[in-house]
């Protein structure tokens, strides 16, 4: 099976070129400047961007346990509809992914679905209890790639220390959901002017920053690699900048909602804007954009967190934290490009190249000869309404659902196969 993607613009982290991509089976076998090849299928990518399949280091697929929110199939479909070909699902399933059998079951189910590569994140601690670390070696053997008690921080510093040290013996790393649980316990949004107006219990950004500081100090102590999940505050980035400058092994990610929105969105008590960490101030949002621009932020990850409409259709303080992200990753990130915050090359670096590097996926993250044919073809100018027909998640908790968006994946190719086509797109 040979596939030619012609007339498109190839965007890599370090270069942009107008050329054709020749794929045979699951590999990119050549980048060519002509069409003089025999192929089974051709995609005309005129006016489109050809980028390496996006790698989302932070999703929640709710499978096993909460399949009514999303399962591996709907999650995978949402991923490829968003140009994402590799996902790292968090461990807060039910049962938790804190042992090899769950990791194996997740991967087996995902392989059977066959749309994306699933690289599970294991729990740090057994039962998310924060007491004793999981069998990391065994889970890595089974296919886990990192460890996190996402949603529940490990409060005991000695457990976190052990996790960092032990993970490093397997050349793996720990992802921190940084949150001081005691400070502003039961807060429901960012503490700021908006929470003061609304009379909602706020969570100061220090709730996050305190734990970011601790975790980086533990990385300093252990030499282990800490990855800070969903950074949302200016001071978290300041602390990360300091740690990076000092040579501490720290990386971080920012979610699209944190570089796109502020807590002002909550003025109508819209539970679809409720997530943790919460939307913060204008100043914080600008710091995220600056961090993406100047290279301090390593990765864009969605924290795709589906919740059923029934769960969100309640009093604000009762609603669960979380927002869909997979299918709005491309339009929100392209908006950064349109706003001249980052270049297209930087976008590719943040959404594919750098995650591949962090995860040591040597055949991913670039459009190049010999690489795996995981490809997203993006139309940056496509305007459409993100509606129920397009939304592949089982859940609807995106404030952008039913809104007009610009920019989308029009083709997603996984291992050389077209796994998603934007509905209005016609293959030639």
């Amino acid at each position, binding site marked *: 099976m040979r596939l030619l993607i012609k007339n498109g613009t190839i965007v890599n982290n370090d270069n942009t070129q107008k050329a054709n991509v020749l794929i045979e089976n699951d590999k990119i076998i050549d980048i060519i400047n002509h069409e003089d090849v025999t192929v089974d299928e051709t995609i005309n990518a005129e006016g489109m961007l050809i980028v390496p399949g996006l790698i989302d280091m932070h999703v929640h697929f709710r499978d096993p346990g909460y399949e009514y929110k999303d399962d591996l199939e709907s999650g995978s479909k949402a991923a490829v509809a968003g140009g994402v070909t590799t996902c790292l699902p968090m461990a807060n399933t039910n049962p938790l992914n804190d042992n090899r059998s769950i990791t194996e079951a997740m991967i087996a189910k995902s392989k059977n679905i066959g749309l994306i590569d699933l690289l599970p994140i294991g729990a740090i601690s057994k039962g998310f209890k924060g007491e004793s670390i999981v069998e990391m070696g065994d889970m890595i053997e089974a296919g886990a790639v990192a460890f996190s008690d996402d949603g529940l921080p490990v409060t005991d510093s000695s457990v976190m220390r052990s996790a960092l040290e032990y993970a490093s013996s397997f050349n793996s790393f720990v992802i921190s959901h940084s949150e001081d649980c005691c400070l502003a316990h039961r807060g429901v949004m960012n503490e*700021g002017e908006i929470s*003061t*107006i609304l*009379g*909602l219990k706020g969570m*100061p950004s220090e709730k996050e920053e305190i734990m970011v500081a601790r975790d980086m100090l533990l990385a300093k102590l252990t030499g282990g690699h800490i990855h800070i999940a969903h950074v949302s505050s200016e001071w978290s980035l300041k602390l990360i900048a300091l740690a990076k400058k000092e040579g501490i092994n720290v990386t971080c990610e920012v979610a699209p909602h944190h570089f796109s929105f502020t807590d002002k969105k909550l003025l109508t008590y819209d539970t679809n804007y409720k997530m943790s960490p919460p939307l913060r101030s204008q100043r914080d949002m600008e710091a995220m954009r600056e961090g993406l621009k100047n290279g301090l932020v390593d990765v864009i990850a969605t924290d795709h967190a589906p919740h059923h409409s029934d769960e969100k259709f309640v*009093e*604000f303080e*009762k609603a669960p934290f979380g927002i869909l992200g997979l299918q709005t990753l491309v339009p929100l990130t392209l908006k950064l490009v349109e706003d001249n915050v980052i270049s297209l090359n930087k976008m590719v670096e943040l959404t594919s190249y750098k995650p591949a590097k962090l995860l040591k996926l040597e055949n991913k993250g670039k459009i190049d000869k010999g690489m795996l044919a995981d490809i997203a073809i993006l139309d940056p100018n496509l305007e459409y309404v993100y509606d129920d027909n397009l939304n592949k998640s089982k859940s609807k908790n995106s404030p952008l659902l039913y809104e007009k968006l610009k920019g989308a994946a029009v083709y997603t190719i996984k291992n050389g196969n077209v796994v998603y086509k934007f509905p209005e797109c016609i293959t030639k």
Partner: protein
Amino acid sequence: MDIVYNKKDLIGLRELSKEEILYFLDSAQQFKDLNNSEIKKDKLLHGKTVINAFFENSTRTRVSFETAAKRLAADAINFSSSSSSVSKGETLVDTIKNMQSMKTDIFVLRHSASGAASFVANNIDASVVNAGDGANEHPTQALLDLFTIKEHKGTLEGLNVSIIGDILHSRVARSNIWAMNKLGMNVRIFGPATMIPKYSEVFNCKVCKTMEEAVEGSDVIIMMRIQLERQNESLVPSIREYSKFFGLNKERIKLSNKDAIIMHPGPINRGVEINSDVADSQRSVILDQVENGVAIRMAVLNILNQNRKG
């Protein structure tokens, strides 16, 4: 009187204009007169059903609303969450929609969650009066406060108002602050720093550092109830200490203007935020507030009922 308020619901004063606020105050006078007449009854809401849906404890506000509805000849039904199906896992909107199906015209809603009133109002056709939602708003309390101030002072604009106590968790403080700013009153707030929002600049009022500063030159002192259970959150070390440093007593009101009035939304904790020698003094208008509350609520119910006809 030209109608200047035509919304289905009354959720908060933050979203109201000065004219709309004054319209409610003006409308209440006729009901105050009625309440002081021989036959305390009008038929304005005859044949209408008003449900007091209280998902949080209340005595005064519920009785006040019930009295208001009954004096307007509505069928007033009380519902409180302890005896409701809420404990059986039904959602708030489902509970309200069930009661709406019984052809309810107006819901008076009290709920512990900020935003609950607008959430319900946006999802039903019946009218909603917010009788307090979390720390967000308690519009009828602020309206009755303003009515009482106007009654005693003759005017609102230019008055110095001190709101003292737990501002952070107070919906009464918020509703009053939003309204008083629109009406050109000078609001000051004071309380232990743990009970003053860090971002209180959004209130656009002066944050005082001492009780003396808060009270000096004041025309109106509104004491906020301290919720005794908040001690567990380490906001105040003890009731004793709160009273000593943040309570209102006879000595402290000497700094205020000599005709200053003392207010409190109730229920008062005697000897905590307010001493009996103040609460029972000539300056105290606390019971006037309660009286005016019925008139304000009659006005609110009547206006919303009229809006429903339109």
